[in-house]
């Protein structure tokens, strides 16, 4: 489950499986390590359990979230009194977010009764979570799928074919950079990785543009094609972002080395 046997990469983050059996994001329990500890640490989700869709446990509608905020409030669009649409005017959203923050933030309730302070904390946490989800096109698209009973499902567990070459290229360049750093001569390798990073950023911009276009299609009625395409783009976006994060991290380390 955790490794793609063809490429021997972690399904989630694309790193070579030998280095990392599971990754934090997917957290799938590797078969080989089951039962090590009788009381056990936690395994994430039960992706392989029949009848249990892992993506219904993203946390948005989970019972525990309900305990924090009544379920009527967990519609993130409703939080901002916005219609449910997959596209959002970000400037307007930000203004709504600021207006709610000015009304609800715990800083404004420090001289209020404890019940008001607690309510302020809960509501502000919800507003912050809703804003974080809606302002980011990817998080919003995933949320959109979720409230419509859809999920990326297994699509997200395979390296998208369109990106397979890129994944290899990035891993290779990062390996070279690490080796060069050990040898104390990272300059050339750093330049090469910087070039890869620029390419990834272009990939990301490309995906963002495609996603925005698809979300428009969704908003205008949508169809099965738009859904499939959106899933495909989201899956690619997810990979590009993870790769970019790895590259940024490695670059950061080389900058400060």
């Amino acid at each position, binding site marked *: 489950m955790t490794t793609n046997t063809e490429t021997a990469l972690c399904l989630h983050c694309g790193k070579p499986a030998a280095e990392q059996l599971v990754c934090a994001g997917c957290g799938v329990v590797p078969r080989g390590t089951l039962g090590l500890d009788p009381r056990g*640490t936690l*395994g*994430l989700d039960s992706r392989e359990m029949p009848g249990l869709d892992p993506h219904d446990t993203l946390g948005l509608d989970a019972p*525990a979230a309900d305990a924090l905020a009544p379920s009527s409030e967990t519609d993130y669009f409703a939080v901002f009194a916005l219609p449910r649409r997959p596209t959002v005017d970000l400037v307007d959203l930000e*203004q709504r977010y600021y207006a709610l923050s000015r009304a609800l933030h715990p800083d404004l309730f420090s001289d*209020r009764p404890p019940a008001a302070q607690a*309510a302020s904390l809960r509501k502000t946490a919800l507003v*912050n979570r809703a*804003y974080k989800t809606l302002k980011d096109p990817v998080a919003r698209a995933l949320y959109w799928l979720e409230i419509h009973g859809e999920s990326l499902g297994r699509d997200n567990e395979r390296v998208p074919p369109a990106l397979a070459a890129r994944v290899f290229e990035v891993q290779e360049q990062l390996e070279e950079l690490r080796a060069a750093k050990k040898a104390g001569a990272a300059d050339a390798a750093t330049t090469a990785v910087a070039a890869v990073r620029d390419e990834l950023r272009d990939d990301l911009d490309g995906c963002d543009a495609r996603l925005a276009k698809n979300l428009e299609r969704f908003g205008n009625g949508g169809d099965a094609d738009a859904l499939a395409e959106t899933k495909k783009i989201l899956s690619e976006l997810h990979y590009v972002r993870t790769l970019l994060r790895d590259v940024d991290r490695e670059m950061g380390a080389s900058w400060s080395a």
Partner: protein
Amino acid sequence: MERIVGIDLGTTNSLVAWLDDATPRVIADPATGRVIVPSVVSFPTNGCGDSGGPIVGDEARALAPTAPATTIESVKRFMGLGREHLSAADRQRYTFAEDDGRVLRFTIGERTYAPPEISALILKELKRRAEAALGGEVKKAVITVPAYFNDTQRQATKDAGRLAGLEVLRLVNEPTAAALAYGLDQMSAGTVAVYDFGGGTFDVSILKMERGIFAVKATGGDTRLGGGDDVDEAVADWLLAGHPQSAARDVRALARRAAEEAKCRLSTVDATEVALTLADGTRLAKTLTRAEFDALIAPIVERTLGPCRQALADAGLRPADVDAAVLVGGSTRIPLVRAKVAELFGREPLCSLDPDQVVALGAGVQAGILSGRKKDMLLLDVVPLSLGIETMGGVMTRLIERNTTIPTSHSETFTTAVDNQTAVDLHVLQGEREIAKDCRSLARFSIPIEPATAGFPRVDVVFMIDANGILNVTARDVRTGRERSLDVKPSYGLTDDEVERMLEESIDYAEEDVAARLLAESRTEAATLIRQIERTLGESRALLEAGEEDAIRAAIVTLQQAAEGTDYNRVRDVAQALSDVSTPFAHRIMEASIKRALEHKNAGGGSWV
């Protein structure tokens, strides 16, 4: 009006400020006129190995070179650490208790002190000053912490406040505080990078300002990198290179002081003599040029630039998107630091406010916001480090990503990996690494579950971070509804009992009757609660439901009667009952303000220029 002060509890220096009308001011010692309290605590010995009463500030700093073993400098570097985090240099510099306690403790004479106890002594000195200058008791404070402080370090800072007799209303991130001070001073809107290089910590924050909202977009840093510690050490190493006593504690203390003085001179001259006279009368002198100094510290300055680039990347910005770069912290007086910041952001950085005072000024502004005296500004801060739990295979599973705006909450559902588990262990982690053991362990607790086949049980885990960035974790077995919740008490922090004991041991409280103090506190809390609720009743009468006001008023009368008695437990219980009966009313007020906010969303708020 209640006085709330803002405190910059720095590695090298500490200051206290408050909001006087609309202007934040740092508070000077009425006796000496000085605003800076060096963050140094010295315990004079009486010759028998016992420590006398502690000395704080300038006098203690003067003692550091001659009494390095009984004088603690840079205690902030040790807040929230365990013994395994100590470096060889730390152990060379101070003696630590080698008992089996979890909490790191300095050994001084016959006694040991946890870092929050030392910090509390500095806070008490600031409190004393503020009370002398403002004329009246000061009980509440906002304290700044490096943005990159983790949960453990934040808790330790709150403990220090409590030990000093201060209720810490809010921990504010230092670069954010600086941005508040600058925002009040001159900026209206735009994106600002705050580069905060202090005596012992480095922070960078990217903020977006708009009409009184200060929204932090990203933050980064290094809590063990500073001008006082790393720069001075580098110069001291250079000065002592080849010297036979270069590792001796007293020699190093003298060399560090000479290094610090030379560093300050080199901000304005191109070359200076670094000299020291050892206890045996030998004199050591070398000339240090600006170029040599720059070469010595270049690697240290370079280490600050990685977090800057990372923060920009996290905020999704390029250097050119930043409208202003602001310099904070004494170490930004070093010309090489200024040059590197200018180079990175492609513009001359701003430093119109005193870099030593700007954080305290910002803390004063936040104190004003919390006391209700400043209503047109609001800080939206972020959590600096990701939070998560350990899952199967020793993996860190993040529930809350770094740079998420706080307060926030997130829940995730987990299951078991082994058949018939009777409990699951939750290991709460903080950090950016993928593997649990590379992250900071914050707490461990376990929740009992109904045994079942692996994969069937469902445990909901909710992380809630309050406006101080402090975490509460709740875990619930979905099937039984059994639930456990805790405020994360860090693995290297003080327990409530330890704080209580330290309070009892401290001289200030030793003579007081503890019961009398608890009664007085419960009465004050009751009076505050009644005042808050009466004000709310007056302002939002329209939202009351039939009979509700009578119920609330009755509860107020009961509380007033209880407060006249001497049973502090009863006062607390009745206060809780009053709080409970007013809860639905408070919720309605909240709903109404949400409605108002969205209706008037474009009207904006305050008189922001």
